[in-house]
């Protein structure tokens, strides 16, 4: 932990793919225990930002510190070990492996003796998975697959859990359940960085939000303020 209570501290982060830059000088903070929403249109760079933080996309400039440790340019296995877990868009489960194997894969780098205990904890968050541990992940419903994806992230015992569009493809009542659990996970002490197209839902459970436009952070404010902001309402809520 840094002295100012920040868990994640990102400064001047830029990144892109072959064709050109996608992120331009991103400054971003997440405090320990905070739930932060990242809002922006499709193509703004939200998923690229998560990929850059987890080491999937190499940065071209800037710094990423987690609890004071420099992680910019570190490979994914190093960012996981440092405490960042990335739950990617579209779940990306191993469909022909069992639910239990998928969950345990989240802990593949851990050598502590508490993996089984954490598995039990994941099943208390997602009781629906308890009697499906032996099933192939590919045959689960979309909602259950999202639960496995989040559970797999938790099995790394992260300090920061990054979740990319958990509501994607889910029925409204299932979305509510998943969002409730994300809130609970956060209350239990894990900081969360949430990317979500359903801006209403995201700002509903978040402490604070960032607005990303064309690869730049244009605004950050407490979630309640963003919900009331007329420009945000018009640009992202369509009301």
């Amino acid at each position, binding site marked *: 932990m840094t002295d100012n209570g920040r868990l994640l501290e990102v400064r001047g982060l830029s990144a892109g793919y072959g*064709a050109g830059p996608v992120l331009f000088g991103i400054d971003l903070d997440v405090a320990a225990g905070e739930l932060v929403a990242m809002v922006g*249109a*499709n*193509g703004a760079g939200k998923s690229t930002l998560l990929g850059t933080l987890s080491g999937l996309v190499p940065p071209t400039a800037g710094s990423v510190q987690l609890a004071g440790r420099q992680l910019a340019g570190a490979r994914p296995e190093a960012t996981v070990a440092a405490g960042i877990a990335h739950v990617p*868009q*579209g*779940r*990306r*489960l*191993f*469909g*022909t492996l069992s639910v239990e194997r998928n969950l345990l894969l989240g802990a593949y780098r851990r050598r502590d003796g508490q993996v089984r205990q954490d598995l039990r904890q994941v099943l208390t968050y997602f009781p629906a998975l308890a009697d499906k541990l032996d099933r192939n*992940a*590919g045959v*689960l*419903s*979309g*909602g259950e*697959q999202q639960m496995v994806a989040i559970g797999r992230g938790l099995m790394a015992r992260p300090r920061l859990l990054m979740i990319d*569009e958990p*509501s*994607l*493809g*889910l*029925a*409204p*009542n*299932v*979305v*509510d*359940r998943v969002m409730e659990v994300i809130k609970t996970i956060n209350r239990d002490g894990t900081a969360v960085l949430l990317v*979500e*197209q*359903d*801006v*209403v*839902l995201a700002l509903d459970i978040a402490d604070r939000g960032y607005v990303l436009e064309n690869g730049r952070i244009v605004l950050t404010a407490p979630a309640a303020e963003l919900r009331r902001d007329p420009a945000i309402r018009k*640009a*992202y*809520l*369509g*009301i």
Partner: protein
Amino acid sequence: MSQLAVRGVSKRFGGVAALTEVTFSVEPGEIFGIIGPNGAGKTTLLNCISGLYDTDAGEIRWEDRSITGLPAHRIARLGIGRTFQIVRPFGSMTVRENAATGALFGQPSGRLQPRQALAYADTVLDLVGLAAKRDYPVRRLTVPDRKRLEVARALAMRPRLLLLDEVMAGLNPVEIEQALDMVRQVNRQGVTMVLIEHVMRVIVGVCTRALVLNFGRPLIEGKPEAVLRDPRVIEAYLGERYARQGGPDASPTQADGEGGGGAGQ
């Protein structure tokens, strides 16, 4: 006469009854919504109509002839086009070339010449709002534009009925409004539509009627507003928050790829 009539259609996968005696009909020019929980059989139903799956029982009639058991390409050439949840454009081709593939192979009259197919691709790209990006490689497209291209590829086959499988998935509320304009625009050209969505503002915004599937069976069918107020639908699908906040505009939710979406990659 209904344009599309689904009569008592059932479909099993091994021991799982994916669809059980589903009956509904769609009139010319309608936008008919299909909603329901993940795994309720919505995509399976579209797969039966478009001929990707054989049905185990029941009949599907299209413009007063039976299309039950016909192969997918025949059904496509009879005027039923469709999109898929997981879009799979040809990555090395341009937007225009991708749209032209639909025109090239899916025409009722058989094949078009490549030049004619490209010309028709321009027409449909204009209709879905992608004309300015027609020379882009598809990898440069954002998610909303990829969905538009998916619709363009299906439209290039000149369907009279278009089956849309969650084309609003992954769009934010403003992008959804833009996509709704596209749907209305296509519908005004005389294309009947059947669409699956988890986004209730879509169902209320454009659908003439909606059918709710639950565990493969029809739960209720009717005007969207009435269907979404039904206690059984709130219980099985919408949830209490939706009921509490009272309406589709209170909580637009997102969607893409139920079931196998993203697994096994």
